[in-house]
């Protein structure tokens, strides 16, 4: 290795080392703590715990078995899974719809759409959640609008799990559309025109050319949205029901309200495992796409 490369590697390691110390070590500490290792750097946190499980030798799984047999955790877990899945699906559908619309239509309506979808990026999440829950609440503006226009009763979706999905979709749309739109921009016009000239229908062009060329952006949007939603706190805390809640909220409750940081870190580890699975998918999609790009060159 050349000398300049060695220096470059050292410079590149600065943020890596920073993350290793302040994220890597805490992650390992959290895993160890949830397995009953309460000494060392975990001593301070262990002091707060009402119901501490301490290992004598080797890891113990009593914290996890306690969680898994706990009905309220089970409900929170499944609620988190379906909220995440539904949010990802909706974000991808809306994202694809808007990105396609902006790619293949021209005119002033498109300009409106392209300044509109970016708006949620401008608004802090705390405020967005608050604005959304005010809007969608029972007796909120949406109920009032439906009452006035359609003369129907709409109970609102504030403080429900579906409300959380709406909040997640709202906050994740800008990133999704940005990624997908930049992917669609990369599909060359001549390719599409050639397909049309040979008589391909719009649906065929979409299915055989546009979608295959955009699997990577789609995967990036899906995995990042999934990871963000899984660990989210603000949106479900302000918009969601008291129970079942998403795991991001329940871990904060285990810590702040029930004084059980060990349960809280165990929940965090469970969410981390789910998120790491999505992260692996993200890396795999990137590597596969790079390999394909390499093969065609």
């Amino acid at each position: 290795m050349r000398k300049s490369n060695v220096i470059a590697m050292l410079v590149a390691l600065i943020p890596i080392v920073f993350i290793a110390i302040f994220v890597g070590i805490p992650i390992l500490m959290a895993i160890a703590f949830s397995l009953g290792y309460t000494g060392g750097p975990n001593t301070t946190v262990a002091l707060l715990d009402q119901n501490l499980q301490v290992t004598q030798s080797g890891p113990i799984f009593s914290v996890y078995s306690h969680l898994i047999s706990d009905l309220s955790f089970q409900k929170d877990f499944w609620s988190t899974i379906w909220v995440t899945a539904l949010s990802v699906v909706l974000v991808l559908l809306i994202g694809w719809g808007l990105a396609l619309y902006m790619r293949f239509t021209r005119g002033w309506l498109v300009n409106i759409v392209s300044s509109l979808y970016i708006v949620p990026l401008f608004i802090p999440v705390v405020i967005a959640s608050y604005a959304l829950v005010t809007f969608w609440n029972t007796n909120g503006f949406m109920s009032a609008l439906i009452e006035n226009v359609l003369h129907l009763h709409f109970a609102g979706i504030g403080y429900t799990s579906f409300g959380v999905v709406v909040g997640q979709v709202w906050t994740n749309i800008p990133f999704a559309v940005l990624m997908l739109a930049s992917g669609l921009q990369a599909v060359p016009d001549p390719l599409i025109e050639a397909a049309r000239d040979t008589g391909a229908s719009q649906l065929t062009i979409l299915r055989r050319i546009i979608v295959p060329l955009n699997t990577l952006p789609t995967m990036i949007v899906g995995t990042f949205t999934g990871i963000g939603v899984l660990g989210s706190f603000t949106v479900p805390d302000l918009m969601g029901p008291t129970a079942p809640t998403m795991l991001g909220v329940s871990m904060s409750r285990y810590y702040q309200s029930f004084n059980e940081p060990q349960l809280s870190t165990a929940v965090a580890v469970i969410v981390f495992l789910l998120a790491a699975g999505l992260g692996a998918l993200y890396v795999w999609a990137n590597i596969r796409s790079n390999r394909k790009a390499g093969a065609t060159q």
Partner: protein
Amino acid sequence: MSTLRVSNDEQALTPRRAYSSRPLSTTQVVRWIISCVIILALVLFILGPLVILFLWAFADAWFYPALLPHTWTFSWWQQILLNGDIGHSILLSFIFAPVVTLVSAAICLPAAYAFARFKFPGQRAFMVSLFATNAFPKMGLYIVMAGLLYTFGLMDTFWGVVLVQLLNTVVVMTWIPSAAFAAVPRELEDAARDAGAGLWTTFWRVTLPLARSGIMVALILSFLASLDEAQGTFLVGSPDYITMPTQMYTLVTSYPQQAAAVFSIVLSIPSFVLLLLVRKYILGGTLAAGFRLR
């Protein structure tokens, strides 16, 4: 897929003439109506909540099912803006955000350049490992981090809060500028070098200006990440370092709707102004480029 329409070049160049010279067919009218309805729904979905929150900031009495407030007032603005605690939290937020952004830039920008321009073993693995900050839920991280911060004596200190907020900026501050540096054509740098420019001059006069958009986007996104961070700041900084978003939680839970609405507007202004500055770069794909691994 009613909205999918592939136009040819001619139409793209002269859209207005192309539309007006032909009478509209029924399908075209139907399509146009459908897209109008969809866009109206989108406007309602995205802007609706923000507009209503804005109205609440000036509402005196507003009862269901009225679509507009019955009476209006400015008194909530006085209450919020003249409140000492809130003024202090606004000031504090604007001290933290630039500090966090600068420290983050100092740590990450050189690394971003190194990732983009040099080859070394484990390069991609390092880049991906930054991702751990996104994958592990923040709350769990902060709880065990609290142990570390106690050990270092950083709980309830200025630098403790800076540290917690930095964690949210490292990924954008490395990934986006790195993609921007990588997109600068090597030939341009080589040409500058051939013309006799030194390494430093080449970087300063050629590479940096070309990568500027990516760096700007990263700086502003970090600034906003710091400005918006509530959970970690609350856990590490309370009771002495209450920033704007932390204050917002208190306002939401224990004040009337109007107070939170006024504060929301105050809190959104900086985000809005700063993002307008980099809007064209973000829409141009700078952000998207940062999230593709090379």
